[in-house]
C-alpha cells in the first residue's frame, strides 16, 4: 500500500495530464457528435431523396465499421487526398463522427416519438415549420432522448481511449508510457481504469441527470 502511494506521488502528474487530454477529447468529440447527429437526423428525415440518401449513407458507413478503422483511415489515408490533420484533431474528429452516427438515430427516434397530435396542434395554430420544430416538437423530443444520450456520452468517453493509438497523449497513452517505464501493470492500468470509471459515473451520469431535471422543469413536467 505504501509502495502504491509512493508510485502515485511519482506518476500523478502524468495521469493528470492524460486525464486533461481525455477530457478535452471527450468535450470536443461530444460537441461534434451533437452537431453531426442533429444534421444527419434531419437529413435522414428529409422528404428530398438525395439529402435523405446522403444522411443514410453517412449513418450506415460510420455505424457499420469500427471506430479504430475510421480513425486510422482519417489519420493515415486522408493525407493521400491532400487533407492532413494533426493527431489531436484526427482523434476527436473520428470519435465525434462515429458517435454522431449513433446519436443521429437517437435524435430521429426522439423526434418520431413525439405524439402526432402535437404536430397537428402546431399546424392548427398556424406556426411556421421552423418554430413548430424549435418550440414544440424538439423540446419534447429532447426530453425523451436525454437518457440514451447519457449512455452515448459514456460510450464517447470510452471511445476516446482509442486516440492513444494515433499517439494522442491521453490517459490511455500516459498509462502505456508509465507501464513501459515501471512494469507495474496492475497499478498503472488499474489506476487508469478507476479514473475512467470516476469520469463516467461521477461526472457524466450526474451531469445528465441534472440536465434531465432542468429540462423537465423548464417544460414544467417534473
Amino acid at each position, binding site marked *: 500500500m505504501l509502495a502504491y502511494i509512493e508510485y502515485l506521488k511519482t506518476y500523478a502528474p502524468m495521469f493528470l495530464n492524460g486525464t486533461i487530454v481525455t477530457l478535452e477529447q471527450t468535450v470536443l468529440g461530444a460537441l461534434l457528435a451533437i452537431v453531426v447527429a442533429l444534421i444527419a437526423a434531419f437529413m435522414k428525415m428529409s422528404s428530398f431523396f438525395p439529402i435523405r440518401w446522403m444522411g443514410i449513407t453517412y449513418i450506415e*458507413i460510420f455505424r457499420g465499421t469500427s471506430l479504430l478503422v475510421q480513425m486510422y483511415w482519417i489519420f493515415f*489515408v486522408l493525407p493521400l487526398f491532400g487533407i492532413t490533420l494533426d493527431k489531436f484533431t484526427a482523434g476527436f474528429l473520428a470519435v465525434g463522427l462515429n458517435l454522431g452516427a449513433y446519436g443521429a438515430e437517437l435524435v430521429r427516434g426522439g423526434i418520431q416519438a413525439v405524439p402526432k397530435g402535437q404536430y397537428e396542434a402546431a399546424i392548427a395554430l398556424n406556426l411556421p415549420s421552423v418554430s413548430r420544430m424549435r418550440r414544440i416538437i424538439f423540446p419534447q423530443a429532447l426530453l425523451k432522448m436525454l437518457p440514451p444520450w447519457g449512455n452515448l456520452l*459514456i460510450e464517447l468517453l470510452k471511445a476516446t481511449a482509442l486516440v492513444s*493509438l494515433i499517439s494522442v497523449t491521453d490517459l490511455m497513452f500516459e498509462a502505456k508510457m508509465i507501464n513501459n517505464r515501471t512494469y507495474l*501493470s496492475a497499478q498503472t492500468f488499474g489506476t487508469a481504469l478507476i479514473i475512467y470509471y470516476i469520469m463516467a459515473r461521477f461526472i457524466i451520469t450526474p451531469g445528465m441527470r441534472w440536465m434531465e431535471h432542468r429540462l423537465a422543469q423548464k417544460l414544467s413536467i417534473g
Partner: protein
Amino acid sequence: MFDWKWDFTFEILPRMLVATLNTLMAAGIGYSIALVVGLILALAQRTPYRVLSFCVREFVEFVRSTPLVLQIFFVFYVGPQFGIRLSPWVSGMIAIGLHYAAYLSEVYRAGLDSIPQGQWEACVALNLSTKRTYFRIVIPQAIPVVIPGAGNYLVGIFKDTPMLSVIGVMELFHTATAIGANTYRFLEPYTLVGLIFLSLSLPAAMFLRRFEDWVRASLGMKKLYSKD
C-alpha cells in the same frame, strides 16, 4: 481514385480474407463467452445473497463504464506480473468476452424483468423448482425480449475486434497495419478493412431483424419488421 492500385489490391486480398476469418472467429468465441457469462452475471444479481448481488452489480457497472482497450491491456499485462502468462488470443478473448458479458447481462436483466409477476406466482403455486421455473417458464418467454439487444451486441463485438490488434492478435485490422508497414501503402489495406466490415455488418444487422421476426412468429407473437 487517383492513387488506387488494383494489382496491389488483388495481391493483398487473399491475405485480408484469411484475416477476416480470424476476426470472425474472435467475434464468435468472444460472443459465446459473453452469452454464458452474461447470463451468470444477470442471474447472480437476482440471488437473495445481498453481498453477491451488490458485488456483481458494481462489477457490471465498472466494466461497462471503462474502455475496452484499457481492459484488454489490463488482462494482457497484469497476468505476467503475477507469474501467469496468457497468449494474446487468450487474454483478448477473456477481455472482450467479459466486457460484452457485462453488456449482455443488462439485456438479460431487462428480459427477465419483463416477465409479469403472475408467471412467477403461478410457478410457486404449481410448486415448480427454481431451476424449472427459470428454464421452462421464465427464460423461454424472455428470449424474444432479449434477441434484439443481444443481436446488436453481436454486431458490436464484431466491430470491436480491431481493438485486439493492440496486443498482437492477428485479425483483419492487424493484418492491414502489417501490410501498410511493409509496403508503405495504407490506402488499399485500410479501405479494404472498412469495406469488409461494412459488407459483413450491414447484412448481419438485416439478418438479425429477420431472425427476430422468425423467433417471434414461432412463438406466436406479432412480427416487428416484415410487412406480412
